[in-house]
């Protein structure tokens, strides 16, 4: 185990209680993710992929185990500190895009920077314009999500995820709602950003296309890591 890795999980266990029953969604997961990796988590439904992503994204805390991100132990942090950590280091791309419907493309992309409150107006505009151009949506800044196609919405979601230059982007089934051609474009785009900027991407997916592009595939079954294949 390498506790100096970008993301380091050590013996992470997550237990949910449903009435009298206990569900072990994760059971002693050890995982190191280096900066700049393009990693896919695969496994059948209910295997613990989403729970793992939620814990990697600090949206949920483990019942047991250690989490060290970028050299910082996170297990003991309270909700407010976890919110701050998420805000500063982690971004998300969701299966159903989850853009804010009342905000334009530009405003959606700027949202993480506005929540972060670290950059001035000029840099905010420059960074959002750069990311919108990078995902191929220049000229569509003033449109609302309802005026975009599914593929375009996912591009906006990717621009939103990258604009704050996060340590890691967590993508939960990002191609699930897209046709195969658009899915290919989206995965290519993320692969390109990963190569050019060194941003770490972690996907959960069932999509063979995404798996083909991944340089590392972590297989999870019944809450345990059962495979870790590097290409």
């Amino acid at each position, binding site marked *: 185990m390498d506790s100096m890795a970008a993301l380091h999980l050590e013996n992470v266990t997550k237990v949910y209680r449903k009435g009298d029953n206990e569900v072990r969604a994760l059971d002693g997961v050890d995982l190191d993710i280096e900066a700049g990796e393009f990693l896919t988590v695969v496994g059948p439904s209910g295997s613990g992929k989403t729970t793992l992503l939620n814990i990697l994204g600090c*949206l949920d805390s483990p019942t047991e185990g250690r989490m060290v991100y970028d050299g910082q132990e996170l297990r003991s942090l309270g909700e407010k500190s976890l919110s701050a950590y998420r805000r500063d280091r982690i971004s998300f791309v*969701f299966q159903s895009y989850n853009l804010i419907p009342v905000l334009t493309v530009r405003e959606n992309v700027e949202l993480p920077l506005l929540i972060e409150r670290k950059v001035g107006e000029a840099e905010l505009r420059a960074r959002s314009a750069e990311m919108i151009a990078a995902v191929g949506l220049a000229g569509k800044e003033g449109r609302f999500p309802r005026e975009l196609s599914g593929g375009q919405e996912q591009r906006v979601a990717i621009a939103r995820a990258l604009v704050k230059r996060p340590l890691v982007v967590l993508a939960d089934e990002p191609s699930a709602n897209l046709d195969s051609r658009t899915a290919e474009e989206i995965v290519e785009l993320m692969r390109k950003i990963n190569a050019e900027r060194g941003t770490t991407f972690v996907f959960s997916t069932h999509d063979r296309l995404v798996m083909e592009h991944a340089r590392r595939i972590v297989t999870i079954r019944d809450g345990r890591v059962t495979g870790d294949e590097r290409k």
Partner: protein
Amino acid sequence: MGTLWKIALRNTLRHKRRTIITAVVMMAGISVFILFDSVISGMDRMAVDNMSDYSLSSLKIRTPAYVDDLAATPLDKSLPDAAAALSVLGNEGIAATPRLRFVALVSNYSDQIPVIADGVDPASDPKVFKVASSLASGTWLGSSAPKSVVMGAVLAKELGLKAGDSVLVSVQTVDDVTNADEYLIAGLAQTPDPTVNEAGLFMSLDDARALVVAPSRPGGFATELDAALPRAPNLNSALAQGERVATSLRASLPGLRVDPIGYLAQSYLSVRNAKSKYSFVLILIVLFIAGVGIVNTILMSVYSRIREIGVLRAYGMTPRDISRLFTLEGLALGLFGSVLGVALGALFDLFMVLKGFSLEGYSSIMGALPLGGVIYGEWNPGTMAFGFVFGMVVALVAARIPARRAAKLEPTAALRFQ
């Protein structure tokens, strides 16, 4: 905060129907409150003005002993020197008139009715009271018709009398001896003050003094001086003006009581204060309904945007920010409703202030209240400010309930929500 406002405002505008329904309820509550307050204030103003104009005057000067024994209208406790007191008022530029008040029995030679009669100065009385200009028939008192009276139209009707008929008036004199005389009915008074119509009897001071066998006295025999003050913009300033002038006159009239309209009409005004509380309860009920509407609207907004809340939490918004976002939505709704409510209320108010509402045909409902003619609204910016602030406070309090619920949502549960 700018982004939160932007999201809140756009969401409010996005769900137009929900926003309009909630804003309309608030608007109705606030505008009805403003209208209600305007009409109630206008009615109070009219009632107090009518009492001042037809029976009480704006300010009365009497002896303390007379006021202590007011119910008996004691003639032996009348003003020691009415002319001197009149001259003090004259020096202050205040229009005033003497009156001699006494208990009398009015008879048509078959039936008799007890009344409180007034001996008045026919020349100066119309400068303080409006009875002279409110005659249903006949004329006001004058030197051309000695030994005449003006009586309330309802009183005359009860006795089957009309202008030109004769009437017998009997009294207990100053020396407590019964005296009576016959008078010609010069005119019948029909005023907005029912006490004048039902029990008013007016004769000249000279006739009254002769009837009660008043002893000669420096300045003439009068039980009270009645004064008129300039018209104030609203009831509260009229009451304040009366108190101010009375305080100033008390120093110049030692040994006499100076009572402004606020004291003279105190029984009516205490009812008025109770009415103000009812109007407050009215706005409370209507805005409570609006508050329930706001809770409902924002709860619907929370439930329709649970995944959005999850995204915002995932991107680092704290529960406090989420709560603030929905609270701002409530405030935006409150702002729409309150601004529209105050605007509509101001329009209602403007109509009532300029055009008024005629009470003709409602006299049976008004009963003993001194109301009649056209009732005008009172312009009250304080009520509008209160309505606006109260609307905003209701919106804020109502929005806190769903806002706190939104803030408590776990991000993972919110993101899973279908």
